[in-house]
């Protein structure tokens, strides 16, 4: 319970509350973009620094796990959406792709919680964070192609689109910022890093609070669209992160053999879904899919679920698993 009193989570609640009581509280749109840029660079630098003391070779299993999640989870999601929910194939493909990817906001909230309890964690989950967006976009494309085939009508000009999106998956601004900042964090000298630390680390957790307040308002706004989305999809938005979390827990504990903190983070990566790089990619790749489905699920259901219930629960289970040995 006290783990819920982490400022980041409280600010998320603040934003959601302000939205639900229909306050006119609103952050300027550019503020959101600036904060995202800042946070991505901050995570990247911090991650890059952590690698200095962690043999890079040991990152390989984490990379494998990231690809596994990025490819496996969307396929599971697609099967559930099609098989159980009878959701339209292209909508299913677009939604599924989101669940292969990760939510940087959820990840940072988990980090904030671990930090506030002084729990340590491995350096590798952050690289998974950077990697998982790309395979998720790819598998989204594959699922869309498959969907179009079973629906009978191939979209023309799709091949050009494919190339375009493969490029996009690797040149997406957010992913790039994260990767390159990681590189910079890795190569700069200690005294140089100390000069930029007050900005990128010192005030990081505070900025994260404003970010989550903004996310809270956005999540609150999306709740009004639950009706349009339907009961099945809202349930899916809660069940799918639980399924992802199970895989994350198993992979983190048994395959990667991380500490409690590391397992929590891996679980968060598997359980969360993207709202930064994947939505615009899917809008472009599957224009027939209804964006309000995947955005409502991602921002209005899965994100709040993870922040409020998921993260503390994943941590508790990770502790239990560690206790089991």
């Amino acid at each position, binding site marked *: 319970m006290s783990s819920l009193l982490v400022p980041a989570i409280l600010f998320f609640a603040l934003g959601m509350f302000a939205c639900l009581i229909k306050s006119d509280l609103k952050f300027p*749109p550019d503020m959101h973009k600036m904060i995202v840029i800042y946070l991505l660079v901050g995570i990247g630098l911090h991650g890059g620094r952590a690698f200095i003391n962690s043999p890079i070779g040991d990152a390989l299993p984490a990379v494998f796990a990231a690809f596994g999640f990025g490819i496996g989870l969307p396929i599971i999601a697609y099967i559930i959406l099609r098989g159980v929910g009878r959701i339209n194939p292209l909508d299913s493909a677009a939604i599924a792709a989101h669940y292969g990817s990760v939510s940087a906001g959820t990840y940072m909230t988990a980090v904030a919680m671990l930090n506030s309890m002084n729990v340590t964690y491995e350096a590798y989950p952050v690289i998974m964070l950077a990697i998982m967006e790309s395979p998720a976009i790819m598998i989204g494309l594959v699922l869309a192609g498959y969907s179009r085939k079973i629906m009978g009508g191939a979209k023309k000009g799709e091949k050009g689109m494919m190339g375009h999106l493969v490029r996009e998956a690797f040149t997406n601004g957010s992913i790039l910022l994260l990767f390159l900042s990681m590189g910079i964090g890795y190569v700069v000298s200690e005294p140089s890093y100390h000069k930029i630390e007050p900005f990128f680390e010192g005030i990081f957790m505070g900025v994260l609070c404003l970010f989550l307040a903004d996310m809270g308002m956005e999540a609150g706004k999306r709740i009004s669209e639950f009706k349009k989305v339907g009961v099945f999809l809202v349930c899916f938005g809660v069940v799918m992160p639980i399924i992802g979390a199970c895989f994350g827990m198993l992979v983190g504990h048994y395959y990667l053999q991380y500490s409690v903190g590391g397992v929590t983070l891996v679980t968060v990566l598997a359980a969360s879904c993207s*709202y*930064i790089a994947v*939505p*615009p990619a899917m809008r472009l790749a599957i*224009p027939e899919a209804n964006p309000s489905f995947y*955005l409502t699920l*991602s921002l209005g259901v899965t994100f709040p679920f993870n922040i409020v219930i998921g993260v503390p629960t994943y941590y508790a289970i990770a502790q239990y698993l560690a206790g089991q040995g």
Partner: protein
Amino acid sequence: MSSDVLIPLKRIEIVVDEDSVEKLLDLLHAANVRGYTVIKHAGGLGSRGERRPDDYALQERNALVILACDEKQAERIVTALRTRLKEFGGMCLVSDCNWVVGASGSY
């Protein structure tokens, strides 16, 4: 108002994806257009559904280009634009207007 104050011209109003606006302007430059006005950050509804510039996650934007030119020029632009409008995503309207003499004649 007398005809030495007003010159009858065509007013062309084009809405395209903000990402395509550079290509549209290149097309206009190629057609020797001497003046236009561009408004970005527009939203809208069209055949591809709604586009909202303020959206949290998607931020799809249109640009509105307004230009005044003589009839001949208008015909040239419309001909050049027609085939590419689908690629740009958008629409083009043509109407009548009168240019107030006095401004430097950039039409």
